[in-house]
């Protein structure tokens, strides 16, 4: 059962390699994403277990992340056929490029599923680095100067960042072996968390800094965030949705696991301080560059840095309420951001540019899409009824009750700046006067392509009202992220 979320997308990738991208196989990606989501729900209901000779392991936290991957992948894959059709009409992508798109997106989803199901820090690292290489070709999909530049910077910065995490992993392994764990157990989540108290503090401290900075690079956190706006603005829209909506969170999932080990070995203060610094720096970067932003895809990219900063802040606060809010925020942000990136892809294809000046007055020309885009932005700015309102409120409340008001207050100020910046830009883009000579040039008919967008927004709003059947899973996942996985023997193969 545990192998299904990895095997399904891999099988779809093989089919794309065999048959290419055509009218029928175009929907294969959505089918495999739907299957992944169903498998994730079944795994969540089945509870803990390990499989594939102990390489994979599922608990509430990994099942929850798997559900996030399934949901965002489903939205992105439902939008892909329409996106590629428009690219083909515009002459940007031939059949060979479409086939590559199919293969690489499916392998990318499989790598993310492997990352959250990995039983050890080592497997997780291998899977996260694999996502970098797979998405590099998707970022460079259009092969223009800009796309090539973005892809190069993306691979170099992310590989260097993640190399720091590899060094951290090597050092944790060293500490673990000297704490009496075997080579095989030395990178395993459960044994590391269970024996965290025996790890040498001096060595573990170096390792935690490297791991947080390294995985933080992939999560889009400052100081190594520079790749993110370039890559997200150049990638095809459904890939941007996947990268921003879920790849960043998968990398942050690694930090959540590391934090449990760090708290056990060094006490909660060390990782908390590190995460607060990183979080406030990310919020500051996002705020500075969201004011007066001239490109709507880059605006969405900087908003991702903001939200990852908020998630890091929630993780730093670190009590049960904060981590439940962090996990809800991950899902809400995944939904909202993928709707926005998919919508921005339609706008970009119609306008031939992602500059805000060229799509002014979108509301008059394409009311349907402008409404969806506007609602999506409201969701991201944390307005009710969307779930990001609930999770942001919970993070702030948890921060003040934990006595971390000194960290939450500047974060709130920066968030206000961001609301003002994004609000102003969105006003020009959606409500402003259309540029002369562009009258009717942006006639975008959504038809079927609007369905995943509306579905994503509705889901995001519904989560803000009630968690429904997700509540028990979210609560046990938050417990695991707060105090670590329950000790004791892990169930056999399934």
């Amino acid at each position, binding site marked *: 059962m545990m192998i299904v979320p990895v095997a399904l997308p891999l099988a779809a990738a093989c089919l794309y390699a065999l048959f290419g991208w055509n009218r029928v196989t175009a929907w294969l990606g959505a089918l495999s994403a739907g299957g992944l989501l169903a498998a994730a729900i079944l795994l969540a209901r089945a509870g803990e277990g390990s499989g594939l000779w102990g390489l994979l392991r599922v608990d509430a936290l990994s099942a929850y992340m798997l559900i996030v991957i399934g949901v965002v992948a489903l939205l992105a894959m439902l939008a892909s056929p329409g996106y590629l059709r428009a690219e083909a009409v515009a002459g940007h992508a031939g059949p060979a490029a479409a086939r590559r798109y199919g293969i690489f997106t499916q392998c990318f989803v499989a790598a993310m599923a492997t990352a959250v199901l990995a039983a050890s820090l080592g497997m997780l690292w*291998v899977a996260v680095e694999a996502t970098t*290489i797979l998405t590099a070709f998707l970022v460079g999909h259009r092969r223009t100067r*800009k796309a090539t530049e973005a892809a190069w910077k993306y691979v170099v910065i992310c590989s260097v960042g993640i190399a720091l995490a590899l060094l951290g992993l*090597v050092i944790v392994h060293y500490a673990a072996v000297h704490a009496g764990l075997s*080579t*095989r157990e030395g990178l395993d989540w459960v044994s590391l968390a269970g024996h965290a108290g025996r790890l040498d503090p001096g060595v573990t401290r170096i390792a935690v800094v490297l791991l947080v900075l390294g995985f933080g690079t992939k999560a889009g956190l400052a100081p190594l965030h520079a790749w993110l706006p370039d890559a997200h603005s150049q990638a095809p829209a459904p890939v941007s949705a996947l990268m921003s909506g879920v790849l960043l969170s998968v990398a942050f999932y690694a930090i959540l696991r590391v934090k449990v080990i760090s708290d056990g070995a060094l006490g909660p203060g060390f990782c908390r301080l590190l995460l607060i610094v990183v979080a406030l720096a990310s919020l500051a970067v996002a705020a500075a560059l969201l004011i007066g932003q001239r490109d709507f895809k880059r605006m969405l990219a900087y908003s991702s840095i903001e939200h990852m900063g908020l998630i890091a802040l929630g993780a730093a606060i670190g009590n049960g309420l904060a981590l439940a809010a962090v996990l809800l925020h991950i899902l809400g942000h995944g939904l909202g951001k993928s709707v926005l990136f998919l919508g921005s892809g339609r706008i970009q294809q119609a306008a031939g540019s992602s500059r805000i000046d060229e799509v002014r007055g979108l509301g008059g020309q394409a009311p349907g899409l402008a409404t969806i885009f506007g609602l999506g932005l409201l969701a991201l700015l944390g307005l009710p009824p969307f779930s990001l309102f609930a999770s942001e409120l919970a993070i702030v409340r948890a921060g003040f009750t934990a006595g971390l008001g000194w960290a939450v207050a500047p974060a709130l100020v920066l968030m206000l700046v961001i609301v003002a910046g994004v609000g102003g830009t969105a006003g020009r883009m959606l409500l402003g006067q259309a540029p002369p000579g562009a009258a009717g040039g942006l006639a975008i008919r959504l038809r079927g392509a609007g369905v995943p967008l509306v579905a994503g927004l509705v889901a995001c709003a519904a989560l803000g009202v009630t968690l429904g059947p997700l509540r028990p899973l979210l609560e046990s996942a938050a417990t695991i992220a707060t105090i670590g996985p329950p000790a004791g023997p892990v169930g056999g193969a399934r």
Partner: protein
Amino acid sequence: MTDPLYVQTLDLACGAFLLTGVLVLWRRDLAAIIWLFALQGVALGALIAVRGLHEADVELTVLGLGVGLLRAVLLPYLMRRALAAGEEGREARPHVSVAASLLVTAVLTMIAYAVSQPLVRLAPTPATQAVPIALTVLLVGFFVLVTRRRALSQVVGFLLMDNAITAAAFLTTTGVPLVVELGVSLDVLLAVLALQVLTTRMRAAFGGTDLDELRELHD
């Protein structure tokens, strides 16, 4: 393997590992840089094999040979092919001069020694005492990455960092679990292949591989 012989060969391998890393900063001829990188791969393979012989661990010795093959033969071969595809055989004028770079290396070495003190203190053996060397090469690799202007030099910088991390893994313990080591090696190979493809595209789009030309994306 007797203890004094083990310590001497280990130190020899580590010395060669450090020297080849630092010499990369000295040379500006890209073909020579690839040669130095290949030599460093040999030193790394030897380092692991010596550890394996000392621990009487067949798996580790074989792994040393494998790592040596990947880093001394396969990766340099790929880079030489990428170099042959283009015309530029030399590093353009680097942002930091060679003399200044070598001075910086001295500072980086001291930083590496200071930072790795807790690592050595946990278990002071001949192998862990060489960990600062690995960290020095890591910092040198990072320095190459940020100051050099050719695409291929950046790839070498990244690979120096990766060599250094592998060396650290085998100096601190007998290596991370085999599955992870294989996965890491595969990822590195794929990353180099990806960068090679991107270099070809860069040459087609920009007419060269000078990274200073990459400045179309900004806010």
